[in-house]
């Protein structure tokens, strides 16, 4: 791997990690709120939150671009605050965060839904406030699912392409992540160089998905062990 390759890898991992860290509290809060709510509001919220999963990433990218550009609704505020977003690494973070949030929310929601609400009620009768019960019971019981969702969201952020290229461009050394570099190199005929990066992405994705699998299947093992104990 060349120094350039390493630079691309470092940028990609850093940007995906920041996007995931930003998403973590948001995703956990949204997953918790969704798991405790019912009715049409929840259904609507679920649907909107899932849109990034099904929309073409370029469509999401264009929507973000419209929002963030200088005369867009958010762009004006950002410009007056002197914050530059578009075509910087920050834009890559935002695009990856938006595209990967649904994974985190869905996993967190499912994990919280598996926590018996009666256990939370029990914690209350034992002296815990609502937030203490969340911290001491809901979170520790759901952490496996949340961790799996976080890893999956991180993997998704690593490979984000469509939305990123619209809001961040493909600027080597600045916004060029692995996915963008592979596209550019194969476009200009540097297939071997592109293939090196493909190998890197395969290793990264393999590690992340394997870790997710281990986290989600450990749970099943524990249930088996429990049944074996009692028989």
């Amino acid at each position, binding site marked *: 791997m060349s120094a350039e390759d390493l630079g691309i890898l470092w940028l990609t991992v850093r940007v995906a990690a920041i996007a995931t860290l930003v998403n973590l509290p948001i995703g956990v809060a949204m997953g918790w709120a969704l798991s405790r709510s019912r009715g049409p509001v929840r259904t609507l919220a679920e649907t909107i939150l899932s849109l990034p999963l099904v929309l073409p990433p370029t469509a999401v990218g264009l929507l973000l671009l419209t929002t963030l550009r200088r005369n867009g609704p958010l762009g004006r505020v950002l410009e007056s605050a002197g914050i530059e977003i578009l075509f910087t690494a920050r834009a890559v973070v935002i695009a990856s965060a938006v595209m990967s949030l649904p994974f985190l929310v869905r996993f967190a929601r499912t994990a919280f839904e598996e926590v018996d609400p*009666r256990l939370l*009620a*029990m*914690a209350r*009768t034992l002296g*815990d406030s609502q937030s203490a019960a969340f911290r001491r*019971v809901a979170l520790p019981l759901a952490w496996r699912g949340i961790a799996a969702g976080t890893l999956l969201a991180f993997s998704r952020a690593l490979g984000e392409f469509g939305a990123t290229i619209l809001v961040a461009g493909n600027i080597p050394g600045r916004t060029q992540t692995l996915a963008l570099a592979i596209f550019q190199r194969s476009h200009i005929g540097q297939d071997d160089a592109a293939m090196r990066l493909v190998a890197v992405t395969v290793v990264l994705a393999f590690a992340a998905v394997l870790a997710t699998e281990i986290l989600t299947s450990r749970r099943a093992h524990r249930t088996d*062990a429990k049944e074996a104990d009692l028989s």
Partner: protein
Amino acid sequence: MIRLDVRLPLPRFTLRVEAELAGGIAVLGPSGSGKTSLLETIAGLRPRARGRISVDGVALMDDTPGIRLPPERRGVGYVPQDALLFPHRDVAANVRFGLKGGAPAQLFQELVEILEIGPLLRRFPNAISGGERQRVALARALATQPRLLLLDEPLAALDVELKERILPYLLRVRDAVGVPFLYVTHNAGEAAAVAEEAILLRRGEVVRHGPVDRVLAAMASERVDPAARYENVLAGVLEPRGEGAGETAVFHSNGGRLIVPAPSDAAPPGRTVFSVAPEDILVSATAPEGVSARNRLFGRVVAVREDETGTWVRVEAEGIPWTVRLTRAAEHELALAPGAQVWLTIKAHSFRRIS
């Protein structure tokens, strides 16, 4: 003293309970009569409940000054049927969950000893038995030093043998810790063994309230709860036995004198509870002669009732209301009707000691 005046709308009826309770109280009633909802209301887990709840003068809920303590500030310990231990914490961490900073240092150790959970402390809830889980749940609730304990069929999920092993722990907790409690159960024996007072709920209303054996007797005669086996449950005192006493003992209950199996341990002082299955009582129209059974009681038929489960006869004998189960043919042959004089014959060994 627990003062209740609560209302809670439920899907099929409104729970309305107005009562003043003290000590150990059995909460009886058929499934779906509002027993669990009552406990959850007291624990503060039913936001739609209205009215007043106070325990020893402390208001947990009172609509008029607008008091509504959240569950964590009520000081009410809750032990549900399925224990609900925290699966991610070992037994010690479960018991310590509600231990307050100000709790006496030896409280944890005391609870571990009373409930004999020392060997389980490092194990997780999924690796201990149902009976052990109940003991841990009880210790966990007591660790908060509650002013009131709510027990929701804590033994219902256990089989008979286990039940008999857990019951002594409950009695020990009652006697050693002395915290007042509400005990929901379907089982007459359990109710008689742990509680002094009982309330009977039907469709969310208190239909009976009084000494536990009286309420149980009334339930038996009215067959209130078809799911429950309401045996003849008698609370009373065993006569101290002299030297070389045989295999039987004398038991006094409600003014009646009965011959029962001698307890295996030294004659237990204080209140003892026995039960007799309605099938184990013989009815005859004339005085039984030359029978081996130790108890021959003269009495009068109070009521006769037939349903799909058989014929049930209520007999008042030796001041005790008895429930007897007969076949239809036997009932016709004896021509039993309210007011008829009858003899009841019960073997000493038909009496089973509950506590």
